[in-house]
């Protein structure tokens, strides 16, 4: 695998990681909201 391909692969992995982190953050805030609403 050449350097350019490796660079592209790493970029793709980073993009997926950021996307997953954002989705996880949204899910966490969603869950917190439900719990807080139940408590209220």
């Amino acid at each position: 695998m050449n350097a350019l391909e490796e660079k592209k692969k790493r970029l793709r992995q980073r993009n997926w990681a950021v996307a997953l982190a954002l989705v996880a953050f949204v899910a966490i805030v969603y869950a917190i909201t439900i719990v807080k609403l139940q408590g209220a």
Partner: protein
Amino acid sequence: MAEQQIGIATETATVRVAEQGASVGDFIALLKPRVMSLVVFSGFAGLYVAPGHVHPVIAAVAVLCIAVAAGASGAINMWYDRDIDAVMARTRNRPIPRGAVTPEQALAFGLVLSLFSVMLMDIAVNTTAAALLAFTIFFYVVVYTVWLKRSTPQNIVIGGASGAFPPMIGWAAVTGDVSLASIALFLIIFMWTPPHFWALSLYREGDYAKAGVPMMPVVAGQRSTKLQMLVYTLILCPLTLAPVFLGVAGWVYGASSIALNLGFVGHAIRVLRSDDLRYAKRMFGFSLLYLFLHFALLCVDRAPGILSVLP
């Protein structure tokens, strides 16, 4: 000479960054996962043994925030210490000196995660826990990393407070306050840090000296360090029993703690009496087990109706 070495290492690293870019694993390495695991566990234990009830989702978010904040502090620490990390054998394979992550990326990563963890802790849990979390990050980054680490051999004694806050944060996540029992949990880790860290620095002394970090063995010598390790270990022993007297733990924890303390003091005496650095290495390994077991036993003792009856 050391400064020249640092310069060359940093320059070479920067060139390599431009070639490949960072992988996801490099960013995970910035979070110091091994250090994080003990921090997370002690934070969870503080949350678990605290009196009161918290929704499991909120508890999970609190632990997540502690984990992310610990990782973020680690990333900022690696950004600031990149010059000495490139010189020390133990740290030269970290993402920045290796050239996998640029210092700017590490700093941005750490700052963003710090902000998110504190913000989320405040929104989801409570302001006391969020304030303690923010103070912990500040203490580790500013007080320990920037101020103390390179200026005094007492660096890890005072700086150890940053590693001692997590159980207090976990406790505050449930109760919303800081009580005597949570301070006792804080003090256990605070007093454990010097013998733990100095055991490591005894057999890594050369590394610290090369990097110009004034660790106790470098400044005061091995004999004095070993003596201080024993003193801190002896102060630690009664402190570990404080949770029993404060009603946080029962006899299972108390009896096990006494046995663990005998082992820890035994290690400290063996280190003091011998010039063989293998004993320091063994004490370092035992210290990790010692702290882990203390907090695990706190949780076991608190588990309803399993082993011991709490007052």
